[in-house]
């Protein structure tokens, strides 16, 4: 019973800790949007702007209210589940987010999967013979993955697999619920472009922690006891580095979410990245706030999940 209560306490504490994070993050973003020059009223007034019209629009949209009042009114609404509407287009922000988020999540999920599928074997391969030609070859390959910018890789992929050979579409995305096959087909190239860096990171991190572990006294003892190298690697090695790996995966997932901004532009995918860029460029703060709010939530969920998983894989955390 005691452990059960502790578990719930852990969950509640974590959830309470996230509240100030959300308020702080949205406040900072709001302040930045207001501090940098550029006024959405100019955009809203359009091509035939007059000073009078600009002033009218400021008043109409409440942009002439004090800074804190504007933020407060946004927060108050957000707390009540209303993320407002885009100042530019009038679309409810929640609608935009609910439409864009699946597009982004699909790419990130596939990219993460690809990064793990390729990165883990590479890392194990390299760590099993540290310093060997195989190790150095694999790590050079991985460095390349980190060094290649994803937008460049994206363009190479498009020109090879979408323009020269018509295997994949060049742009756009299809909702998963509408047509799963087409949705995946549209997501492959962007996910590949995203995955390269992640794959390299997973491989390098796994290699270094695994190599360190394999040269530890504990492993030497296991060797001395006559345990087979394969068992050492799979049973003792991977189990011990799984905590590190979890950290890497959580960080990677968070980073991939951010990296989609560029890849979404190259592939014209209407995801969270396009949404926030468009919003930020035009100072459409309800949209930016909404996206930041959602992203913070997602990152918190990812970190929370990682923390919870630590408790599963590492008995030391539990006590």
């Amino acid at each position: 019973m005691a452990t059960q209560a502790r578990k719930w306490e852990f969950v509640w504490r974590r959830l309470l800790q996230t509240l100030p994070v959300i308020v702080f993050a949205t406040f900072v973003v709001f302040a930045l949007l207001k501090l940098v020059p550029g006024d959405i009223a100019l955009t809203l007034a359009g091509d035939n702007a007059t000073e009078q019209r600009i002033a009218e629009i400021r008043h109409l949209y409440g942009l002439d209210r004090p800074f804190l009042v504007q933020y407060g009114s946004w927060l108050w609404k957000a707390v009540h589940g209303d993320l407002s509407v885009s100042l530019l287009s009038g679309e409810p922000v929640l609608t935009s987010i609910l439409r864009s988020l699946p597009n982004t999540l699909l790419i990130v999920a596939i990219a993460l999967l690809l990064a793990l599928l390729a990165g883990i074997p590479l890392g194990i391969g390299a760590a099993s013979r540290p310093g060997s030609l195989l190790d150095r070859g694999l790590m050079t390959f991985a460095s390349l993955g980190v060094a290649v910018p994803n937008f460049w890789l994206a363009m190479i992929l498009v020109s090879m697999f979408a323009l020269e050979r018509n295997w994949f579409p060049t742009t756009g995305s299809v909702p998963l619920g509408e047509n799963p096959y087409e949705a995946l087909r549209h997501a492959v190239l962007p996910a590949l472009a995203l995955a390269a860096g992640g794959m390299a990171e997973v491989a390098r991190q796994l290699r270094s922690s695994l190599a360190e572990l394999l040269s530890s006294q504990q492993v030497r003892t296991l060797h001395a006891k006559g345990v087979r190298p394969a068992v050492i690697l799979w049973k003792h090695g991977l189990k011990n580095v799984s905590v590190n790996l979890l950290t890497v995966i959580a960080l990677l997932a968070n980073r991939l979410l951010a990296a989609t901004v560029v890849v979404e532009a190259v592939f014209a995918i209407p995801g969270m990245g396009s949404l926030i860029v468009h919003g930020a460029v035009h100072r459409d703060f309800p949209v930016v706030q909404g996206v930041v709010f959602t992203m913070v939530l997602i990152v918190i969920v990812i970190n929370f999940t990682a923390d919870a998983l630590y408790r599963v894989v590492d008995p030391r955390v539990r006590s």
Partner: protein
Amino acid sequence: MSEDTKDTIVISRRDLLLAALSGAALSAVPGGLAHAQAAPRRGGVIRIVAPANPSSLDPATGGAGSDHSTLWPIYDTLTEWDYQTLKVVPGMAEWSTPDPQTLVLKLRSDKIVFHDGTPMDAEAVKFNLERNRADSRSNVKADLGSVVSVEVVSPTEVRIKLSQPDAALPAILSDRAGMMISPKAVKELGAESDRKPVGAGPWKFVSWTDNDKVVLTRHEKYWKPNRPYLDGMEVLIIPDQATALRSVTSEQNHLAYNLSPRYKPLADRAKNLTVSTGPTLYCFQIYFNYSRAPLDNPKVRQAINLAIDRPAFVKATQGGLGEAAYMLLPSSHWAYDKQVAALYPYDPAHAKKLLAEAGFPNGLEISFGGYNDQDSVRRAEVVMEMLRKVGINAKFTNGSIAEISGQFFGNEKKFDALLSAWTGRPDPSMTYSLGFAKGAYYNAGRSEASPELSALLKESRLKEDPEFRKAVFAKIQHIVMEQALVAPLAFRYELVAATKQVKDFRPNLLGKPKFNDVWLAS
């Protein structure tokens, strides 16, 4: 103001690389099929790539110049213009001016209906004009400033009373102010009309998802016989131009417009594409704050105009695809004036002399605002170098369009000059009053350049006679250019890349493509 580039998010190095790479890829695409010219075919859904998310699909409440290409299909306008010269022609209505302060509009058909089935009649016209003129959400109030009242004479005729003669009004009614929206829809929807537009144009609205696409389908009761050809239209919003062009090259989409000349070689190389170009009113120019030193001195402004080698500018910044601008109208426009265009040949020696006379024998520093996308930066570099040769040190501060233009035109009054663009208007009087009238927003200093100019701006709206107006505009242009209130640089050319399936697309001088005549070959 280059409002319609404001959504183009350009990430410079990426674009360069992209251009180089897709160039290599495009050259590998095998040659397209040659189609024989045939009669327009009915049917098909065209997929058009637009550079920006619409600001609103309600013509009265939107503001961006980039909206029009999505608005034209949904809304028919009271008047229209000739694609090549922008001369006003009848649209849904014909007009006449029984006396200078009255404009009569007569609908060309009594069978025009909105997409919701309600009649597009004189009552609807009255409702629209009054809404555009007075509604708190209307962005086109100033356009209809001369309208006093609108009276319904018969189901197909309205009589508009004006506070003063306004010869620009027929042209104004070819733009936002003349796009007719269903009164029933506006009354029922309120502010939601922004996202659920109901017009009387050839295609009716289906859906709009922000930064993704706008879907339109055929208006079965469209008033023009046998039109439209296309069953529907999907407008895909792709701000990145290289991506836009790639999606057309791969034939995933049919047509991309407003492309930068940078992409012309790429589009040309793709054998499966048809490339259309044509002049537009969109003018790259240097705005001056002529209300304060140093640019309050006309000699300095004239020197800047003389220092610009315009043909070289077109070559360097637009790959030769463009027209040198010596005034704010291109040579194909009906009110173009040859004499004005001859005022500023490239003459650096003369420029230096003028600067010396103005008290700057050793040159001077002028602060410039500029934009940070790749094309804008290139333009800034060229201007900087040309000005340097006559002793002007142009000190640029670059930033986003919203930021820099706000600082220059708004209350901050930062920078002496701004390197930007003017998107053009259907009637030249709009261009000149919006840019140079006393207190106008795009007149950064808000000061009156000369009483004569103010009088002429009024006079240009007195009579509708084209010859009369041409003469008045010649005088206006003469004053604007002689006093060098602006330094026009070059007109942008429309660059449209389309697959061979797309037929009868024609660019227009306004630079805001219309697709009313377009059809798809099978």
